[in-house]
């Protein structure tokens, strides 16, 4: 699909016959087979499935963190499957945000510095102001100078969400965002994420085991043994 077609359909992310194979001692192992999907701008999509279904692999491919063995992937008008690592890094810097199960905050940076990081990597001069504002939006203005180890799990994930939204990404990828949080905290954090998603018009792609969380998404794609077995809006 060309960039122009994507514009017209307002498709921000598309995968066509994507395969991922790895070499193992037992021979070639197919992790994903012939996966095709289109995701429109502003959608919220949950990828669900049992452990080992290939959810995280699909997320990594869609976000340009990994290269497919076959097929093509377009992200925000760029064919990332045809790019090298540095090309994909540039696309990620401009268009993508991430929220992870284990938060992945840099322990050596304060909350504010963690949020500033993607802005600084993109060379933004207003990094400090923008990051301060983003922390305000997740309700952590009083925790700017704290280091990750001084924050609770929920607070850490809120910092991670501020970091993910601060660049105004086209697509936000989340990998089990509530996996390390208790139910109550997880819910509050997700309220925040969906709220920001609605407010900024970002496309949300999340991988989860959590049925309730998947239920809050506009579309649920079910994966099993590397194939799409369900796609319900």
């Amino acid at each position, binding site marked *: 699909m060309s960039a122009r077609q994507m514009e017209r359909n307002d498709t921000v992310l598309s995968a066509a016959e994507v395969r991922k194979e790895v070499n193992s001692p037992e021979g070639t192992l197919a992790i994903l087979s012939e996966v095709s999907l289109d995701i429109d701008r502003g959608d919220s999509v949950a990828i669900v499935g049992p452990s080992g279904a290939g959810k995280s692999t699909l997320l990594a491919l869609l976000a340009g963190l990994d290269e497919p063995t076959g097929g093509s992937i377009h992200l925000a008008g760029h064919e990332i499957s045809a790019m090298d690592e540095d090309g994909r890094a540039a696309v990620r810097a401009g268009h993508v945000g991430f929220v992870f199960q284990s938060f992945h905050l840099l322990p050596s940076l304060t909350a504010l510095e963690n949020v500033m990081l993607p802005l*600084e990597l993109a060379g933004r001069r207003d990094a400090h102001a923008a990051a301060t504002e983003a922390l305000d939006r997740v309700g952590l203005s009083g925790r700017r100078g704290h280091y990750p180890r001084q924050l609770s799990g929920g607070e850490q994930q809120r910092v991670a969400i501020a970091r993910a939204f601060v660049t105004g990404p086209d697509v936000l990828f989340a990998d089990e965002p509530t996996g390390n949080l208790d139910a109550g905290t997880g819910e509050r954090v997700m309220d925040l994420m969906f709220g920001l998603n609605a407010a900024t018009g970002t496309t949300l792609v999340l991988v989860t085991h959590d049925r309730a969380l998947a239920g809050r998404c506009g579309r649920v794609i079910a994966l099993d043994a590397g194939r799409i077995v369900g796609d319900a809006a």
Partner: protein
Amino acid sequence: MRTLRLALRSLLRDLKSGEVVVLVLALIVAVASITAVGFFTSRIAGAIERQASEVLGADLRLESAREMDPAYEEEAARRGLRTARIVSMPSVVFAGDESSLVALRAASEGYPLRGRLKIADAPFEPARAVDGIPGPGEAWADSRLLARLGVPVGSKLGVGAHTVTVTQVLDYRPDQGSGFADLSATLLINLKDLGKTELVQPGSRVRRALLFAGESGPVENFRDYLEATIRPGERLQSVEDASPQIRASSDRAGRFLSLASMASVLLAAIAVAMTARRYAQRHLDSAALQKCMGASQGLVLRQTLTQLVAVALVTGSIGTLLGLLAQFGLEWLLRDLVRGDLPPPTADVAWLGLGTSVVVLTGFALPPMLQLKRVPPARVLRRNLEPPPLRYAVVYGFAVAAVLGLLLWLVKDARLVAYLAAGIGGTFALLGVAGALMVRSLAPFRSRASVAWRYGLANIARRGRESIAQLVAFGLGLMVLLLLLLVRDDLLDEWKASLPRDAPNYFMINIRPDEGEAVSRFFSERGLPATELVPMIRARLVRINELPVEDMDFGSERARGFVEREANLTWAERLRADNRLVAGRWWDAPRSGRAEVSVEREYAELLGLQLGDELEYDVAGESVTARVTSLREVQWDSFRPNFFVVFSPGVLDDVTGTLITSVHLGPDQRPALVDLVREFPEVTIIDIEALLSQVREVMDKATLAVEYVFGFTLAAGLMVLLAAVQATRDERRYESAMLRTLGASRRVVFQGLAAEFTVLGLLAGLLAATGASVAGFFLAREVFNLDYSPDPAVWLAGILGGALLVGSAGLLATRSVVTHPPVATLRRNY
């Protein structure tokens, strides 16, 4: 800019958290060790440079063992040059019953022509520069001499047949040479007094020097004139010739110390490699995260390089500052050996410091850190994703290149570097193999040990590579210290024991042939041991097989020295008991008149002489030719008069020489020496024991300096231990938590750690003691020709010292493993 900020911020944070402390400390140790030596040698080189024009005390200096033609001085005066004379010789001075060996120097008015003498009113008081020399009847004495004789300024000293009064302490002579000083202390007298001492006799060991100075043009012309007219045995020195020689000898000393400091650099490099590997491993996640957020590989690489540059700058600066402080320690240790004020250290050594830091980081830290650039960004989702492993060629290539680069920088001689690299590589490999065998040999003990010990021994075996690295690091450091501290003393004792009890302790030289009988009588009348007077003749080798020696190329400096200097010869009818014939035949028909010569084996080897070769000597202007008919081995440490070259009888009958003898005198017989000197003032007595104790003093000082430099090696060894402990700290905490959860008390965990490090130290000590004993054995046999039996003290000191040092350092470094609450570790879900 943002790269810089990000990189520095992360580095600063890592520093605060202690993550890179060991890396930084190891680099500081390496830099401090290499710059301490660098600064010190630069100061000595600076002193040589500064004194280049003073080093001769003149612009030109003509030296000879013989009286020189007065025409030289007349010609110089005609050309408007100033001249002065100095005559120097070894002698013994007396103050009451005390005597001491001195370098006697008699100078004429005007000395020195360049530079000024410095004198003081009393030993160790501030010195002042003066013009002029001691007046007749006066002497200026080195403070060491006054100390040795135990007399103050103002005392009277007996010099040969004359008595002089010490009026000043001689602090500095321009021509004393910089760097490492002569063994004996100087006594400066007026040349007008020299005759009264009656010390100068035909064949005395006298060096005469004529000094010339003036405008540069006339000096140049006069130099050309002298070069064209000087005779064999006369040596002309100008400023350009003089300083390189001194520089060469101080360069050698400096090189040796630099190589000693290289040992610390190598060990520090091992510690750096270990910490860098752990650092890279711990930063894979953050590198992956940054990539995930859009950082390019280039950006990650730039960050890594920025951090390395920052670490290099910081450690280079701090290490250099510490090196600067540490070199004062070296200066203090060598204060008696290094003469004159040293200029301040030069700044360019700072480059060496920074360079060392950069090279060690590039060689040992960069390869693992390069992994950060290669980490797959998908690691943020799957932690088991690792960067592709580095090729061994890259890892070892960088390290080997770094070591060779540093060596080449220090030694500046590619061939020597090749030998050194082979030597260092061999030593490390040998120690490594021995270490590996030791680690493996622990296995059988495990089954028989208690829980704590089994845990400790298991740790050593499981962390095999780290254990071997620690064994090598500590083994090397301890080995060198043992060698310097104990084996050196053992060798000296062994050598002393190998000498017969009645080995002569006094040499008497300059005995006139016509006084020979009187001297023998002097001894027999006083019931002193009988003396054997041996003739000694000064001569210079001029041709070998009719080929002038000037036209021959002798490989070694020592061989050149043999032919350039006047040599002492003798003649003898019979082969002496302490000589052994190894080739040819001794002359069996005495006084046949055939000119034959017997040559010492090593001398023959150095000059490439063989049986049948014809040697021509210039003996006091006469030419004497003889054929080599035998080669001898000489037992030099019999302390009896021995010679490289012995002529057959009858050949040198017409030549005036002197007699030489050696004698063993007990303490109660020594006062007789005072009478001997009074009766035979020209006889020079050399006190061998005093000479030996002076040699020993110099050796002690030099060894202390080497030990000081090797102190850094131990510090670097500690860094390896810290690096190894740090690399395993998380693992250890987890194990400790598990053990304690399973019911082990803190004491058991502590005992396990104690067992581990004590055994490591024990093995390192064993390795060190073995290495030191083997090295001592080879030194004894191959270099000193002694039988060496290893001293149990070496083993005791090595093993106990190693166990104590490594045991306590290891426990200190791992104490948090025991004190850390297990629940905190387990909750972190290791």
